[in-house]
C-alpha cells in the first residue's frame, strides 16, 4: 500500500508536508526510489538503524517511518534487513527526458560537479556496459576421441605453484640437482587480491586472511600495512609495497610469502590513492604507521621508480630484504602497452607479473578514470602472454590476472588465455555482503565492509564471512574441475595457454586475433 492510500485512510491527517519531508536542495533527481508497504511496516526502525545514509527516519508527529530517497545509494541493506519485507528499492522511475547522447548519469554528474566543483568520486569497479569479453568466449569439451573425466570420482588437480621457474631441471643420482627459486604452493589458482585494511574493515580483512588459510591460498594486504593481529596469517599473506609505503618495514616484508610491488590498479591506472582521514581510525593508524585522522596519500608513481631499471632496483632491494626467500611480484594496471611493460618486468627480475584489468574494483577512484582508462583484462592478458611467449620468457614467470573475474568460467577462460592464476577482489567482497553500491569511499558502508565505523563494521562477523568466502572458492573450484574434466584434462597446468579450448562468439577478426582464438564453428 502506498503512502497516498494510507493518507486517504486517515482523513483526519491531511496531506501536509513539513520542511523535514523535503529533500536537500539539488537539481539532481534521486537515483533510487524507496517504496514502503505501510500494510507491512511494523515501525520497528530496523531500516533507520541499518542505514548510515540517513534515508529512513521516524516522523514522530505522523507516527510513521518515512524516507529521503535522495540519500539512498541503492545498497539494499534496509530491504534485506526489514523483518516484514516492507521495503523495496528500485531505480527511480522518474528520470530525465531520455536522450541518446546525454544519459541521466551525465546530467547527474554535471549537476553534482556544478554543485561542488569536485572530481566525481566512485568506488568498486567499472559499471558501464563495455563488452565483457569473457562472455564472448565459449569453452570446449571432449566427445568420443578423448574421454571427459569425471571430477567427482577421478583425481582433478588445481594445485599451482607461484614463483619463477628455471628453464630446466637438473637431476643427479635420482635427486634434484638444481636450485629452485622460491615457490608458493596454492591449492587452487585463485588468490584474494589486494584490498587494504583501511579500505575495508578489520573483520573483513580477517575473514579474507582466514579464508586464504583454510583454502590453502594467499590473500594480499594491499598497500595498507599489516595489522599486528594478522601476522599469524603470514603463511598465506602477500604484502604489498606501493607508492605510499604505508606500514612497510622489515617485519612486514618478512612476514609474507610474497612481496608485491604495486605499480598500478586496473580501476585507476596512472593515479595514486587517497584514504580519507575519516577512515584512519586508531587501528588503521597503527597498521599504516601514520597519525590517526590524517589522509593517507599514495602518490601516482613510486618515486623511486621512474624507469624499468629503477623497478629492477626495487625488486632486488626487496629480494635482499627478504633474503631471496620469497617471490617478488609486480602488479600493473592493464594499459595499452601492457605487453611491452610486462616483458620489461620479467627482464627486470620479477618472479610474478600481476595484471589488473579495467573492470577491477577500488575503494575510491575518480569515475572519469575508472570508466575510461585502461584495457579489458581479456585483451591485456592475451597480449602479455603472447608477448612473453614470443620472447621465450613466458615459462620463467608466473602470470596472475585480475580485474573483473566474476565466476569459475571466467577463471577457466583466463587460464586458457595464458594466466597461471587469478586474483579475485570484488567477488570476495560480494560473498561477504557487498551489493556494489559503489560508495566505498564514503566510509559509510552499510554492509560493514568498506568502513572503519565500529557500529557498521561489527555487522560483518569474521567467521561467518570466512565461511562464505571458503564456500565461494570451493564452489568455484568444483566448477573449474567440472570444466577441466569436460575438456578431458585432470590438472590445471594442462589448461594453461591452451587457447584452442576457447572459441569466440560475436567478435571481430581483430578481436579474435588479439585473443588468439578462433570463431565458434571453426
Amino acid at each position, binding site marked *: 500500500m502506498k503512502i497516498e492510500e494510507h493518507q486517504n485512510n486517515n482523513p483526519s491527517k491531511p496531506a501536509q508536508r513539513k520542511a523535514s519531508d523535503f529533500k536537500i536542495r539539488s537539481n539532481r533527481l534521486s537515483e533510487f526510489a524507496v517504496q514502503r508497504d505501510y500494510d507491512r511496516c511494523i515501525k520497528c526502525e530496523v531500516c533507520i538503524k541499518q542505514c548510515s545514509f540517513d534515508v529512513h527516519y521516524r516522523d514522530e508527529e505522523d507516527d510513521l517511518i518515512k524516507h529521503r530517497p535522495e540519500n539512498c545509494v541503492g545498497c539494499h541493506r534496509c530491504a534485506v534487513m526489514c523483518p516484514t519485507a516492507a521495503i523495496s528499492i528500485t531505480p527511480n522511475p522518474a528520470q530525465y527526458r531520455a536522450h541518446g547522447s546525454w544519459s541521466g548519469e551525465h546530467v547527474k554528474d554535471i549537476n553534482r560537479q556544478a554543485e561542488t566543483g569536485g572530481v566525481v568520486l566512485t568506488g568498486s569497479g567499472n559499471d558501464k556496459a563495455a563488452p565483457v569479453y569473457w562472455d564472448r568466449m565459449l569453452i570446449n569439451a571432449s566427445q568420443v576421441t578423448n574421454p571427459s573425466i569425471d571430477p567427482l570420482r577421478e583425481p582433478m588437480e588445481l594445485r599451482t605453484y607461484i614463483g619463477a621457474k*628455471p628453464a*630446466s*631441471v637438473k637431476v643427479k643420482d635420482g635427486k*634434484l640437482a638444481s636450485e*629452485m627459486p622460491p615457490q608458493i604452493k596454492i591449492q587452487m589458482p585463485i588468490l584474494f587480491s589486494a584490498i587494504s585494511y583501511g579500505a575495508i574493515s578489520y573483520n573483513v580483512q580477517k575473514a579474507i586472511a582466514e579464508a586464504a588459510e583454510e583454502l590453502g591460498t594467499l590473500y594480499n594486504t594491499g598497500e595498507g600495512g599489516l595489522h599486528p593481529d594478522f601476522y599469524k596469517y603470514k603463511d598465506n599473506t602477500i604484502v604489498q609495497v606501493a607508492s605510499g609505503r604505508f606500514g612497510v618495514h622489515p617485519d612486514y616484508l618478512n612476514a609474507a610469502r610474497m612481496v608485491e610491488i604495486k605499480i598500478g590498479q586496473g580501476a585507476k591506472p596512472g593515479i595514486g590513492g587517497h584514504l580519507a582521514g575519516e577512515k584512519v581510525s586508531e587501528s588503521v593508524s597503527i597498521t599504516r604507521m601514520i597519525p590517526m585522522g590524517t589522509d593517507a596519500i599514495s602518490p601516482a608513481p613510486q618515486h623511486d621508480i621512474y624507469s624499468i631499471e629503477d623497478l629492477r632496483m626495487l625488486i632486488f632491494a626487496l629480494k635482499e630484504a627478504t633474503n631471496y626467500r620469497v617471490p617478488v611480484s609486480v602488479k600493473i594496471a592493464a594499459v595499452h602497452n601492457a605487453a611491452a611493460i610486462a616483458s620489461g618486468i620479467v627482464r627486470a627480475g620479477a618472479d610474478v607479473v600481476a595484471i589488473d584489468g579495467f573492470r577491477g574494483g577500488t575503494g575510491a577512484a575518480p569515475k572519469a578514470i575508472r570508466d575510461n582508462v585502461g584495457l579489458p583484462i581479456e585483451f591485456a592478458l592475451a597480449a602479455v602472454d603472447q608477448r612473453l*611467449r614470443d620472447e621465450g620468457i613466458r*615459462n620463467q614467470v608466473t602470470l596472475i590476472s585480475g580485474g573483473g573475474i566474476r565466476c569459475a568460467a571466467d577463471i577457466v577462460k583466463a587460464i586458457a588465455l595464458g594466466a597461471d592464476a587469478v586474483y579475485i577482489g570484488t567477488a570476495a567482497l560480494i560473498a561477504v555482503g557487498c551489493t556494489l553500491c559503489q560508495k566505498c569511499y564514503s566510509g559509510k558502508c552499510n554492509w560493514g565492509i568498506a568502513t572503519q565505523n565500529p557500529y557498521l563494521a561489527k555487522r560483518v562477523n569474521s567467521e561467518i564471512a570466512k565461511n562464505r568466502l571458503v564456500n565461494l572458492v570451493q564452489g568455484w573450484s568444483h566448477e573449474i574441475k567440472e570444466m577441466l574434466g569436460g575438456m578431458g*584434462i585432470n590438472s590445471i*597446468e594442462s589448461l594453461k595457454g*591452451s587457447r584452442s579450448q576457447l572459441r569466440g562468439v560475436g567478435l571481430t577478426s581483430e578481436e579474435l586475433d588479439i585473443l588468439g582464438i578462433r570463431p565458434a564453428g571453426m
Partner: protein
Amino acid sequence: MRDLSMVCNPYNEDKVISACSIFGMMDVSGKPFSGEPVFRAMENMHDRGNGLGGGFAVYGIYPEFPDHYALHIMYTSQAARHETEQYLEPRFLVERSEEIPTRKTDGINNEPLVYRYFVLPKIPKQSEVTEEDFMVEQVLRVNAEIDGAFVFSSGKNMGVFKGVGFPEQIARYFRLEEYQGHIWTAHGRFPTNSQAWWGGAHPFCMLDWTVVHNGELSSYGANRAYLETIGYKCTMFTDTEVLTYAIDLILRREKLPPEIFARVISPPLWEEIDRMPEDERKLQTALRSVYGGLLMNGPFSIVVANGSQMIAVTDRIRLRPLTAATKDSTLYFSSEEASIRLVSLELDHVWTPMGGVPVIGKLGALPVPEQSTKRNYTTSTPVEVAR
C-alpha cells in the same frame, strides 16, 4: 614441405585426431631379427586402425653405416628431390644415396618418391653448434622450407618406414621382410580426418629417437604453447608432434633419463607426491612445476625408442591400454595382449604397467615386471641379460 598444415590439416582443426594400435619388440641381447612377427601382431590389431596410416621404426638395419645419419626423405616430385639434393650437397658428405626399395602393393596408393641418404654433417669449423643440433636444424629446415620434401627418418643405423595404408600393407610396400633389426616399433592409425598424408603416419622421428602413440592429448594446446615458447615450431597439428618435441627436449637435449621423462609427461598426482620421501618429493615437485607444460594430459600409450632402449608408458590414470611381456631376451609392448600371444604363445612374464610408470628395456637389461605393476618411484634395477 612448405606449409605442412595444408597437407596435415586441411580442415584447419585445432589438432588432428587419431586413435591407434601400437606394438614394440626388442631383443635386449642386441641380436637382429626379422619383423615378420611384428607384421602379424599388427595385422591382428587391424581393427584398431582404419588404413589411413601405418608405420615402423627399425633399429640396427644399416650396420654398414653405423656412424652415418640415414635420412629417409619422401618427395612429391622429382623437382623437389633435385632441390633437396642441392640443399644437402654443401651441408653434408653424402656417402650413398638411393631410392628406398618398394613393391607395388594393393591398398597403397598415391605413394611419394622415397629416397635415403647416408650422410655425415659438414659443420662449419667456427660454429659452436653440436652435431646433433646441426642435424635437427637441417631436418626441420628441409621440412619447413622445401616444397614437396619431407624428412621422416634421420637417425643412425635405423630407419622409419611409414605411409598411408594398414601397417601390414606398409610393411609389404617397403619390403620390410628384407630387414633385420634388434628393435621394431609399429603403429596402425585411425585418424578421424579422412585426408591422410604419408608424413603424418607414425612413427615420428627426431634423429635416433622415435615414438609411436595411441591416444589423444587433451592438453595439446598447453603442450604446444610451452614448446613453442622454447622455440619448437608445431607445423603438423598432431599431438604426436608435441610428444616428439618433448622427447627431443627431455631425453636428447636435457639428457634426463627415461624414468624422469615419464615423470614429466605422466607425473604422479600431487597427493602421491606429498607422500613421497623428501628427496623424491623435492625432485618431483620441481619437475611438475617447471615442466607443467609438458604434462601430457588425456589418454595415451606410447612406445619410445632409440638404438639402445625401448620405453613404454601410458598416461597417469591409464586411459589407454598397454601390455608388456618378456620371453627369454625379447621384450614386447602391445595395445593388446592377444597380439603378443599370437607371436609368442609362451611368455615368461606378461603384465600391465601402472599408469605413468615406464617400462624400460635396454640393451643387456630386461625390465622387472614388479617395478611397473606397482607404483614405485625409485630408479629401476633391471634384470641383466647376457649380450
